[in-house]
């Protein structure tokens, strides 16, 4: 019987399991991740397999979780901690910004730790369970930010994040957990942080995006193709910091039209950083203005009709692409 397709969630669980199996220095902790298996069941079965001294529950203390992870990392462990929702990491941002992100620069001591943070919306989670905060994390010196969109990438990039000698924020878009499946290779490819991937080729325009929006962009590109035959490239950034600027510039050179899509807020969003990069380095290659399609600058609304208006999706991306291609 061929192996079944693997969900995004299961791929992450497999990476965690393999990390615990192969690396005695890996420990995991967070809220409800032990016997309960986590709010989304990403850590299901791990405490049973590896024991409560390697996978354990903590009090509801995000700052203590991140701070303790930093202390552990400096002593030779590799903590992989879970923020139950990335929204809740905001009560502990100072541990990342001021402590974890500055430690190596100030003292030369490395802090290999991973902060797993389920993020994003699309399921009526309301303002405090749907936020997409990658721009906050990317703004911090000394922190790496990984934001996968496919199960195989999530599995490989989580391994790479845990083995990196730096603090890494690993963003898990909750919408992908159970909506996205794929066949996973039996052999685990080694994966380096900082490499984007063309997940749909095209020569008429490129969508620069990451996370759940990659899947919306691929669907939008297919809609555009069906409608007017245009070929739209989709570039999945996969890692936001370090950013694969070479792949972005190559994609711009190959298409000359750029649409940036993300589900985080507009002002100061990560798309602004990408737009600035393209404007600074590839302005001469552009046939049209750089466009951004993002969430608007309002809190994430609860009611599904409002959230649909709030969150970018394939139809909105298609509309933007059709207009961009006309430009």
């Amino acid at each position: 019987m061929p192996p079944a397709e693997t969900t995004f969630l299961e791929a992450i669980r497999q990476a965690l399991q393999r990390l615990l199996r192969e690396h005695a220095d890996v420990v995991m902790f967070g809220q409800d991740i032990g016997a309960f298996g986590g709010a989304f069941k990403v850590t299901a079965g791990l405490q049973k397999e590896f024991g409560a001294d390697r996978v354990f529950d903590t009090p509801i203390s995000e700052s203590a979780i991140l701070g303790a992870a930093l202390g552990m990392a400096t002593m030779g462990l590799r903590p992989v901690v879970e923020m139950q929702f990335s929204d809740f990491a905001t009560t502990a941002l100072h541990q990342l910004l001021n402590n974890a992100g500055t430690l190596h620069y100030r003292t030369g001591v490395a802090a290999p730790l991973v902060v797993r943070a389920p993020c994003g919306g699309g399921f009526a989670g309301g303002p405090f369970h749907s936020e997409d905060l990658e721009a906050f994390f990317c703004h911090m010196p000394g922190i790496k930010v990984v934001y996968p969109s496919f199960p195989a990438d999530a599995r490989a990039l989580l391994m790479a994040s845990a083995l990196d000698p730096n603090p890494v924020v690993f963003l898990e878009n909750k919408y992908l957990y159970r909506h996205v499946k794929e066949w996973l290779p039996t052999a685990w490819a080694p994966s380096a942080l900082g490499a984007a991937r063309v997940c749909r080729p095209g020569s008429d325009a490129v969508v620069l995006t990451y996370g759940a929006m990659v899947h919306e962009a691929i669907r939008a590109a297919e809609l555009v193709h069906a409608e007017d035959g245009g070929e739209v490239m989709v570039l999945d950034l996969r890692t936001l910091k370090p950013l694969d600027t070479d792949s972005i510039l190559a994609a711009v050179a190959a298409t000359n039209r750029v649409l940036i899509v993300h589900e985080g807020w507009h002002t100061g969003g990560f798309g602004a950083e990408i737009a600035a990069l393209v404007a600074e380095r590839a302005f001469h290659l552009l046939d049209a203005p750089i466009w951004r399609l993002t969430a608007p600058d309002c809190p994430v609304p609860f009611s599904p009709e409002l959230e649909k208006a709030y969150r970018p999706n394939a139809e909105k991306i298609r509309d933007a692409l059709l207009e961009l291609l006309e430009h």
Partner: protein
Amino acid sequence: MNPQKDISKDAALALLRGMLLARRIEERLIRLYHQGSIFGGVYCGFGQEAIGTATTAVSTADDLFAPCIRDMTVHLGRGTTPRDIFRQFLGRAQGPTRGRDGNIHYGELHRGVFAFISHLGAMLPVITGGVMARRRLGRPAVGFAYIGDGGTSTGDFHEAINFAAVFDVPVIFVVENNQFAYSTPNVHQFRCTSLVDRAAGYGIEGIAADGNDVLGLAAQVGALVADIRVKPRAVLLVCETMRMRGHGEHDDGSYVPRELLAAWAKRCPIVVAREKMLAAKLATAAELDALDVAVQAEVGEAYQQALSDPLPNPATLMEGVYATG
């Protein structure tokens, strides 16, 4: 305690020396600050030298420390050299932070000392995790986490102590109640009668101590840490003391009542230690004076050495943001 019976002459002299070393370094830093020869601020531990000195004196190589801004004695007690301290304050390339951070924001982890950051309370979860990890890796560490009276109002103080209590992490949370947080007196900082009362809420022991008696404190914390090594657990140790200067040297501290300072001046930890040692006939006045002279010479030499050390090369600005390999 009976100093003559409970402590050797050498141990008592080492405690006094530790306090004198910090005091004389800080006196030099104050002069440099007012001459405009120091980059940034200078924050002193005048009056609080007994706490870091006594607690490091009873520690072992495996123990971990998270000092605050007035705890130069912790760094000295763990072996950081006066030359490195001057390099740090003078922003030198070879200092503990290679010019990346200033004044008291340093820590040599190979000596078990975490580098302080300005956000009060932020180091308390870090050292808690550090002790958990070090013990897991086979080194029986006890943690010494220092915080001021003002720092007890932070969320991290609460999160870290509760976290350490839940997991029975052997950390001594040392509150240095120096009566003022910048300009804010205790009465505007907390409503409990004593900060020792906070311990009950975490289900841990709360212990009061005289933070200005280095000999008494070394004996008290020595017994406490010996017990914690046998029965690992978090403990709150509240040391009463007094900040004898302004918050920093930019601050004249004029909001502190003069009579309060005068009363605490009589309890200066260096004066108290001297008097106790003389009364117990552990040393003669001439010996103690000679110790101070030797310390002052050492401090002067360390400063001169650091002064001749190079400043960082601006071309290294981006070095070390990320760890490699």
